[in-house]
């Protein structure tokens, strides 16, 4: 049997679906830094960030077979899951009067578990980590306002209406800016390759 470290993310997840805890450990070793970093960036405190990491891997263990995770882009799925968990925790911590829904299995399936395009490119964390410089360059190619709206949306968890309120610009402008920013980011990244 091949070493777990030699397996791709998808192959690793396939092992996880067979209840191979060592495979999950390998996945933890690969993903924990970026998950922890992202969680720490978004979550209100360090303890929350740690909880997010534990929750993410619990969900991977629980949902891998159910969602046929080995056939999806594992990297995109895990990062999106981490971001969704962190934003949810952030929103709940923001206000005691928040009217967020009760966190149960249904809520988790509807708003936390990512839904990905089936035509998404299968990214590998090892490859992505190698492309760090390209990503930075692509991001630097955006205007400040474009970076800011992406930051507000991705890291702060604001929706369009809330961004409109913060920036005091029309909704159509916010939508257009987000769309332009992402498309330019894509263009910058892929043109850079």
């Amino acid at each position, binding site marked *: 049997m091949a070493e777990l470290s030699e397996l791709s993310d998808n192959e690793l997840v396939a092992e996880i679906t067979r209840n191979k*805890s060592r495979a999950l450990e390998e996945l933890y070793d690969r993903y924990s*830094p970026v998950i922890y*970093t992202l969680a720490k960036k978004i979550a209100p405190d360090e303890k929350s960030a740690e909880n997010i*990491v534990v929750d993410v891997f619990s969900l991977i263990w629980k949902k891998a077979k159910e969602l046929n995770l080995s056939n999806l882009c594992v990297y995109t799925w895990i990062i999106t899951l981490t971001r969704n968990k962190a934003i949810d925790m952030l929103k709940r911590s923001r206000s005691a009067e928040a009217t967020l829904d009760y966190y149960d299995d249904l809520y988790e399936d509807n708003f936390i578990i990512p839904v990905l395009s089936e035509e*998404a490119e299968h990214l590998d964390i090892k490859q992505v980590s190698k492309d760090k410089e390209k990503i930075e360059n692509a991001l630097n190619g955006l205007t400040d306002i474009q970076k800011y709206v992406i930051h507000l949306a991705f890291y702060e968890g604001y929706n369009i209406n809330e961004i409109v309120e913060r920036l005091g610009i029309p909704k159509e402008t916010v939508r257009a800016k987000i*769309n332009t920013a992402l498309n330019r980011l894509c263009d910058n990244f892929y043109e850079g390759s």
Partner: protein
Amino acid sequence: MSDQAVNEMMSAFAVGCMDKENYTNFKKHIESKSDLPYGELGRLQAIVTMLPFVLEQEQPPAHLKNHVGRRLMAIQDEMKEKLKSGKTLIIDTNQKRLTKTKTSATNDSFAQLAAANETPAAAPRELHVEKLTFNENKITSETMAHHSESSTLSVLWIVVIILILMVLGLAYYGYNRYYELKEEIGKLDNSLTSTKTELRSTNEFITKNAALIEFFNYDNVWVVPLSGTDPSSKVSGKLYVALTEKEALIQVDNLPNITPDKTFQVWIVSKNQTYSMGKFFIEPGSKYVKLTNIPGIPKEQILQFKITEEPRDGSVVPSGQIYAVGLAKSSGNKTMKKY
């Protein structure tokens, strides 16, 4: 919807800034595999997830790995418990405070998890859905046997209770019925007694009045009241005369006792003459005296009847004391016709 609008929606979805309603609708759109540029959406989703790598990567604390391992072990134990109870596994993966457990002294929880999963003698290795179903079936049949046993016992208890209630009901009914019947028998007894009494009195009446009853078999019985000649006399009675049959019945009370050489004699007094109907003696216990072969005098010629005291052998004409008289045309006269 324009391409521009679709692109904007895909970007908003990819970066995660859709409001709840739009997010739900767009998600359903994707899950239903509606017409969308899925390649473009995939590209946008991918690029967004690369952003965290721009951040300065941090290694998580060392203890975090063990926390994850312990959480997974807890999940596994919970799944086993759920299997045993036959329930669906629901695990709350919401944020939890990380607390140290007392399960193991070692820090390598992944090793423990691996040992638990990979040791043959360990608890069931396979926890995915198919095996879960198989084990559920096995547990379910045992559970069903246990349940059916409990159900049988419950049914037996219910049957026993119903039987006891039926017996009590029957006993109560029987008790009530017994007393009802007893009461009815008492009433019947009383009725029988009164009927017997009535019958006895009727028999006595018939016995006492047999002569009268027989006499009333005749047609046109002439009833003539008799009374004493003296106002102070207590003599009274009735003379029943059947002229056609030439018989008469006398019923008279309070006649005085006469000496053995004397007798009472009954007379018909007509316009021209007095005729003897016959003589009689007072016999104790006999209420009526029957006279036969009385003279066949037409009724319209009869003025009165009288009872006198005569010598024992009788008299041709009334010569003794008159004790009772009955007028032929008095208001008390009746003619009883047999129906």
